[in-house]
């Protein structure tokens, strides 16, 4: 490792394969200081200017915002906030043409500056090295710092790495022709940049700091070297000018001789790389609590007659900047955002400046002649010679044209960094990079579709498996149930016996009660009510209960059994007859029966007897009442309506009691089966019993209704 550092100290760097030496044309702007531009009439601040997710919008239309006020928040890890570049009023939140090759509209917060440029409250951290890594990272996120080098990767995520970092590389290479934004920034703000580098080193824990600058920026090198001083131990590395030495992978290779493994990130080999502009933004964000609201933009090209670097507020339309650099468009004028190698043309000057816009290039057709018609590839291989990723562009273009995506992948199309060196040297003027971009997009789409199809297939198969499993489970359950039935058939005999005992005792008690009632009713013996009907009804209900029990055992719903229905009908008829027979009934009996009905189910056999007794009592009382009736007929009439209701209630109560009994029986049944059957069957049985009860209640109501109708 010592040798590596020694090499770096001696300025013996590695080289990357390929590379080109296009005319840099940096002298157009490198000699002019960074200029200020007046506030534009409207700022279009895109809410997404980085790679990641969008925070929530915090402002609404008509709201007044201060300079540096957050417009979106940064709650999620991948969020990066955006801020009001100056104080003013939120005019609108709407879609606006984007600073993207597609120029597709994206959501922007339109701010009309009020001209006051009034800052929000800030909390400078001069002693920045005393804050924890987490505090610093959070502040970077909230102050909207994303990589200014081109990709806009959130700085707080890159710096949060837990890998052991050996080298923090500051990318000040700026290898794209024409662009001098970083050059000027280094010339004018070297101290702030060094401060930012210190913070980045503090956060990443990097052992060494390498600052890579191409040797065509002597002023920047001098300024940075002076600001670094001696004691910090940062290595300022002057690199030979070659495109694309500022590519992340290439710079890693030049400075350390290492290669970032395929599909990996520099942190995998102990390296973190940050752009020099990002270092400046970090220092502003941490030390001055000044969010990322402006950046240096190089305004250059021969159609711009006052080429220079300007401080542009993020969201400033390009047209506003062009107004201040004496832009005179020519025929078929192109407006390029970025450099001539990797920049993209803007369809309209309304595009706003974002965190990643480093240059506006307005070339004349002489300096950057428009593309000429594509000629066939002669396989000269110049593209392969200049490719920094050691790909074979000549083979790739062949397969890209043939849409042979498998071949493209086997020739590592994905490792193309789209630097444009191949197109630059191509004698046949083949727009190679464009072919690769299209092919990459198509491969991506294809992969997504494949993924979707695979997911659908998985879902379908999972469903099929689930259905099959359910079927098997059902079959298994049925098998177990039938086994259980066989094993409990002996138990059921015992249950039957118990039931018959209960019935007998109940009948005995009823008979006794009837006898008592009869004794009471001695004087009106000849007018005794038709007891046989009550008995018939009771028998019918018993039958119903038995039917229900049977039906339950066979697994069919009780109401689907015709015998059940018949029994219910019989019961209803019986009830109706009983009701007819009973002309009046005392409230006492009703109260009692109601109480009984709410009693615990364990007492229900007793209760049944009591009910029977109550009925008997009621009948006896009725007989007495009938005697009293002879005293005043008119007293009876109004009472009879009320008593009809009561009777119905009583009948319902009886029904409930019976169903509860049935439920209890069922429970007994279930307990009998519990040894062989799953424990969750007993609530199931209960539910069935409840259903049966509900059915019985409904029947009772219907019977009452019938009864009422019959009366009316």
């Amino acid at each position, binding site marked *: 490792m010592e040798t590596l550092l020694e090499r770096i100290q001696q300025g013996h760097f590695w080289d990357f394969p390929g590379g080109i030496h296009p005319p840099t044309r940096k002298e157009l702007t490198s000699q002019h200081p960074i200029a200020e531009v007046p506030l534009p009439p409207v700022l279009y601040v895109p809410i997404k200017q980085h790679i990641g997710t969008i925070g929530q919008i915090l402002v609404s239309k008509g709201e007044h915002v201060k300079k540096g006020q957050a417009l979106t928040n940064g709650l999620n890890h991948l969020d990066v906030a955006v801020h009001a570049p100056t104080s003013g009023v939120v005019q609108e939140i709407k879609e606006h043409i984007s600073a993207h090759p597609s120029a597709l509209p994206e959501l922007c917060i339109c701010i009309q500056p009020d001209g006051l440029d009034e800052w929000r409250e800030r909390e400078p951290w001069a002693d920045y090295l005393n804050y924890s890594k987490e505090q610093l990272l959070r502040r970077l996120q909230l102050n909207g710092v994303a990589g200014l080098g081109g990709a806009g990767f959130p700085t707080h995520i890159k710096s949060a790495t837990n890998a052991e970092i050996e080298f923090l590389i500051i990318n000040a290479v700026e290898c794209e022709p024409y662009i001098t934004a970083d050059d000027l920034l280094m010339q004018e703000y070297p101290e702030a940049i060094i401060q930012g580098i210190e913070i980045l080193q503090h956060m990443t824990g990097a052992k060494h700091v390498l600052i890579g600058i191409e040797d065509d920026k002597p002023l920047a090198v001098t300024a940075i070297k002076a600001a670094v001083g001696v004691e910090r131990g940062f290595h300022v590395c002057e690199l030979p000018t070659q495109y694309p030495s500022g590519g992340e992978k290439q710079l890693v290779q030049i400075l350390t001789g290492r290669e970032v493994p395929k599909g990996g990130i520099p942190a995998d080999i102990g390296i973190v790389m940050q752009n020099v502009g990002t270092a400046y933004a970090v220092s502003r964000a941490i030390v001055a609590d000044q969010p990322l609201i402006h950046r240096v933009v190089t305004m250059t090209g021969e159609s711009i007659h006052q080429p220079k670097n300007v401080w542009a507020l993020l969201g400033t339309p390009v047209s506003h900047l062009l107004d201040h650099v004496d832009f005179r468009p020519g025929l078929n004028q192109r407006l390029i955002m970025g450099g001539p190698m990797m*920049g993209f043309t803007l369809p309209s000057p309304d595009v706003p400046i974002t965190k990643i816009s480093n240059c506006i290039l307005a070339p004349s057709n002489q300096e950057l002649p428009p593309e000429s018609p594509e000629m066939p590839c002669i396989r000269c291989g110049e593209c392969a010679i200049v490719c920094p990723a050691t790909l074979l562009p000549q083979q790739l273009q062949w397969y890209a044209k043939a849409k042979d995506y498998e071949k493209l992948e086997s020739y590592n199309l994905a490792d193309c960094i789209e630097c444009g060196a191949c*197109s630059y040297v191509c004698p046949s003027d083949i727009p190679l990079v464009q072919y690769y971009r299209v092919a990459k997009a198509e491969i991506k789409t294809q992969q997504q579709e494949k993924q979707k199809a695979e997911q659908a297939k998985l879902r379908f198969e999972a469903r099929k498996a689930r259905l099959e499993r359910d079927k098997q489970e059902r079959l298994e359950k049925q098998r177990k149930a039938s086994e259980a039935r066989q094993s409990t058939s002996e138990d059921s005999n015992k249950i039957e016996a118990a039931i018959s005992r209960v019935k007998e005792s109940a009948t005995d008690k009823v008979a006794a009660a009837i006898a008592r009632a009869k004794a009471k009713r001695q004087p009106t013996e000849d007018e005794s009510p038709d007891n046989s009907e009550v008995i018939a009804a009771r028998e019918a209900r018993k039958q119903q209960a038995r039917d229900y029990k049977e039906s339950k055992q066979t697994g069919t719903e009780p109401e689907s059994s015709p015998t059940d229905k018949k029994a219910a009908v019989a019961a209803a008829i019986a009830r109706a007859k009983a009701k007819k027979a009973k002309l009046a009934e005392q409230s006492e009996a009703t109260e009692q029966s109601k109480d009984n009905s709410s009693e615990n189910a364990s007492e229900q056999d007793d209760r049944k007897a009591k009910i029977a007794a109550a009925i008997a009592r009621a009948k006896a009382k009725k007989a007495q009442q009938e005697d009293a009736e002879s005293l005043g007929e008119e007293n009876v009439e109004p009472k009879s309506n009320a008593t009809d209701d009561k009777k119905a209630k009583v009948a319902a109560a009886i029904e409930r009691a019976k169903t509860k009994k049935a439920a209890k029986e069922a429970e007994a049944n279930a307990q009998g089966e519990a040894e062989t059957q799953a424990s969750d069957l007993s609530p199931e049985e209960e539910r069935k019993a409840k259903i049966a009860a509900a059915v019985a209640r409904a029947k009772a109501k219907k019977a009452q209704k019938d009864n009422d109708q019959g009366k009316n």
Partner: protein
Amino acid sequence: MTFKIASSPHLHIRRSTHDIMQLVILACIPGILVQAFFFGWGNLVHIAIAIVTALMAEALILHLRSRPIKPVLMDFSALLTAVLIGTSVPTFAPWWITVIGTGFAILVVKQLYGGLGFNLFNPAMAGYVLLLISFPVEMTAWLPPQSIVHHQVNIGDAFAAIFTGYTLDGYSVAQLRTTIDGMTMATPLDTLKTGFTLGLTSDEITTNPVFGSWYALGWEWVNLAYLAGGLFLLKMNVIRWQIPIATLGSLFLMGLLGYMILPDSSAGPLFHMLTGATMLGAFFIATDPVSASTTNLGRLIYGAFIGLMVFVIRTWGGYPDAFAFAVLLANMCVPLIDYYTRPRTYGYSQGSSS
């Protein structure tokens, strides 16, 4: 205001296919002039015939294929093919030899495969091989250097001999090939081959005046002129060093080996370097990018294979020179070579380049 849309990069080096072909043709000129000086003006006439044929054939077939004619003619690739065929045919071969060879090269080998960039074989060499196989007598009727032939020919004689078979003075091409001593002369390579079949040693054979005092009278200067042109192309980055160096290196090595093992029936490495089509082949023919391998390692293999085949055919084959055959054989191997010589992409570990 709307602006023109274009895809990056917006910056291009200003060297087109046209420029490349033009440079290659320019680099041929010294060799052609030296050849004309030593062997009469016939090659200039043949080059002129070949150019006319090539342009007409290309225009015709582009018309038939409904392709734009002017931009394709202006890429100068047909012109270069014509120049190469014109320099390759024997000085006083009849005119139709060149017409057939060039027509076949352009119409069949190049355009029927899809035009520039799509041809599997080097058109000039495929045309040459067609001629060599079909018209062996005409195609081997090389003249000895003018300094040792009986009849000196001027440019008028050259025209007349090519179009009528007789010079203005009425000599036939066969008569032109006779030396002062009344012997019919061939190229040094031819002479060597014949000599070996007669059981002579190389020392005995090289006493023949066609070998001159050095290696091969006239031919050595022609080869040196082509070498100069080739070095110019290397300097201009029109061609890369891999193919010529591998070709010459392999041929030199094989010649050296042969000379060490069988000094009496071999002609030494420098003889191989400076006779026949060696320099023209190594710098101007094998480097045709379309039909050559396109990876750096592949180009070394491709070149070495050509050198090897040239030596093998020159030594044991039926024809005195072998560049055309060697190049065509190597062309056939190109897809295979390219497939197995893909470079390691950035970030991939050694050995897992694919």
